[in-house]
């Protein structure tokens, strides 16, 4: 590792880094309702507001359903709206998430991933955001603090260019509450990277319009098809923004949709999403196995995953969710993505880290060995 200059590293709590990125993107309205473990994001924003560092205005709403509803109203008037939540809070927003995307409002939200009740658990898994994958939001997952900061900035740009809402998801506690080095961007850098938000249509009393009106059977299906086309096409914007970010600031994350690590010439690979990739990185070289990190869950990069897997004998998907009565949600989607390959690798699934269960090096080593054995089916790491 090359020696960096003496000035030292900026070690901050990842939730605070996310709040810093949000501040730099200057959302006009930030309605939030507190919920663990998201709280450190909104607390930091509230402190910034109190210190006079926040250009927008926070609204203390009475629930998460109100938070996301207030985002709709705010964004429709032509400013950026942002909120953050976790777990039950996101579940309470469910109904409104469809309305945000259906109205093509580019709201940006941070989801600090936490498991769902019952039993009550404040700890991390990704059941909350993965359960919202059908709501028409772009969904980006991050591995570490730097990726959280960078993706949070990119999210505002992707949202306004696609006119789609974007969820930035990071593992609660395991990532959100960790102090680690994160390089910040300056306000000027971010201002240049994320252009002003100028929607074609906005709510204005001098020029009234109606938004989100009735969709009769003649039209509703067309709206849904357009929304699907828009999310499918958003992959182009996501990869473009990833490239632009790389040329502006020197950091990129695969092609913006997936990242492959140590994959060349390998027969086996682990597919992961979120912070668990970090723990795997330590072991893949030793085990002579590749890693495919899914960054974008929606749009789902099926073609990229298929291409990455075409020469593999076996892959295993490790994920922190379970579609009860079915399988791990990502396991099923990966299998579907691989169906088009003539020579398909064996696919195994691992449900791990549920409700905050630590995924340690021994667990990860056992997972990698099982992937190499080529045995199919789903196992729980517990």
């Amino acid at each position: 590792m090359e020696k960096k200059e003496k000035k030292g590293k900026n070690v901050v709590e990842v939730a605070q880094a996310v709040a810093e990125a949000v501040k730099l993107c200057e959302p006009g309205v930030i309605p939030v309702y507190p919920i663990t473990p998201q709280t450190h994001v909104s607390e930091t924003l509230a402190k910034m507001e109190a210190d006079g560092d926040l250009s927008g205005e926070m609204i203390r709403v009475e629930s998460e359903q109100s938070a996301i509803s207030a985002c709709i109203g705010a964004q429709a008037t032509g400013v950026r709206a942002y909120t953050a939540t976790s777990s039950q809070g996101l579940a309470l927003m469910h109904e409104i998430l469809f309305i945000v995307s259906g109205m093509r409002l580019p709201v940006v939200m941070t989801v600090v991933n936490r498991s769902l009740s019952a039993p009550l658990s404040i700890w991390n898994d990704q059941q909350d955001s993965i359960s919202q994958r059908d709501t028409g939001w772009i969904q980006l997952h991050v591995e570490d603090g730097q990726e959280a900061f960078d993706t949070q900035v990119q999210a505002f740009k992707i949202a306004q260019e696609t006119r789609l809402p974007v969820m930035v998801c990071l593992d609660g506690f395991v990532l959100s509450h960790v102090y680690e080095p994160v390089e910040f961007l300056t306000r000027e850098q971010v201002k240049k990277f994320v252009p002003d938000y100028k929607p074609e249509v906005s709510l204005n009393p001098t020029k009234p319009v109606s938004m989100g009106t009735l969709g009769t059977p003649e039209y509703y299906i067309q709206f849904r098809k357009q929304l699907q086309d828009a999310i499918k096409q958003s992959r182009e914007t996501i990869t473009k923004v990833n490239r632009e970010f790389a040329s502006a600031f020197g950091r990129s994350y695969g092609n913006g949709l997936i990242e492959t690590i140590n994959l060349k010439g390998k027969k086996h690979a682990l597919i992961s999403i979120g912070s668990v990739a970090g723990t795997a990185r330590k072991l893949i070289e030793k085990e002579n196995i590749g890693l495919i990190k899914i960054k974008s869950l929606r749009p789902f990069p099926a073609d990229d995953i298929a291409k990455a897997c075409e020469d593999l004998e076996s892959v295993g998907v490790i994920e922190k969710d379970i579609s009860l009565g079915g399988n791990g949600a990502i396991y099923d989607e990966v299998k579907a993505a691989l169906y088009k390959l003539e020579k398909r690798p064996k696919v195994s699934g691992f449900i791990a880290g549920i409700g905050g269960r630590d995924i340690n090096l021994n667990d990860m080593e056992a997972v990698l060995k099982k992937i190499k054995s080529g045995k199919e089916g789903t196992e729980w790491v517990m």
Partner: protein
Amino acid sequence: MIEIRFHGRGGQGAVTAAALLAKAAGYDNKFSQGFPAFGVERRGAPVKAFTRISDDIITIRSQIYKPDYLIILDPSLSGLDEVKEGLKPDTVIIVNGEIDASGFEQKIYSYDATSLALKVLGKDIVNTAMLGMFAKATGLVSLESIQKAIGDIFGGKAGELNMELVKRVYDETGSNEAKEANDKETEG
């Protein structure tokens, strides 16, 4: 990579200590990670926190099971299984106050940080003091960087007092005298 595990009681600031140490290591231009064993915080209940320090980027996200250093803020915790868990023969233990050393084969550095904290802060909060001990005993992080990190996290008077406390602990604990305490069995 160096792995450090803190044991304290809710309210003693073990989690803050882990964060401060990570920040300080960052100021020394090292890679670091500081995080709590995520729980539902209750005052007085045993609490764990972790710091990793490395010359290379740290990607691992699991808790620390085999610490290189163990920092115990409250000596009454030293008998707990979770404190003893995963100790290696060469794990170095840094403890506030006296513990029954017969239960440990490891090298122990001990110092009555509570008395000094009461004198300097007027409170029995020893989280920053322990970092002074750690810096002196190990040389893995500089006193200046710890003080700078304290300045970031504590504002005003609390910051000043804690910086003074760390400095005094650093000056008053000798790595030498601590070494002498159990020289017979030390090898690394």
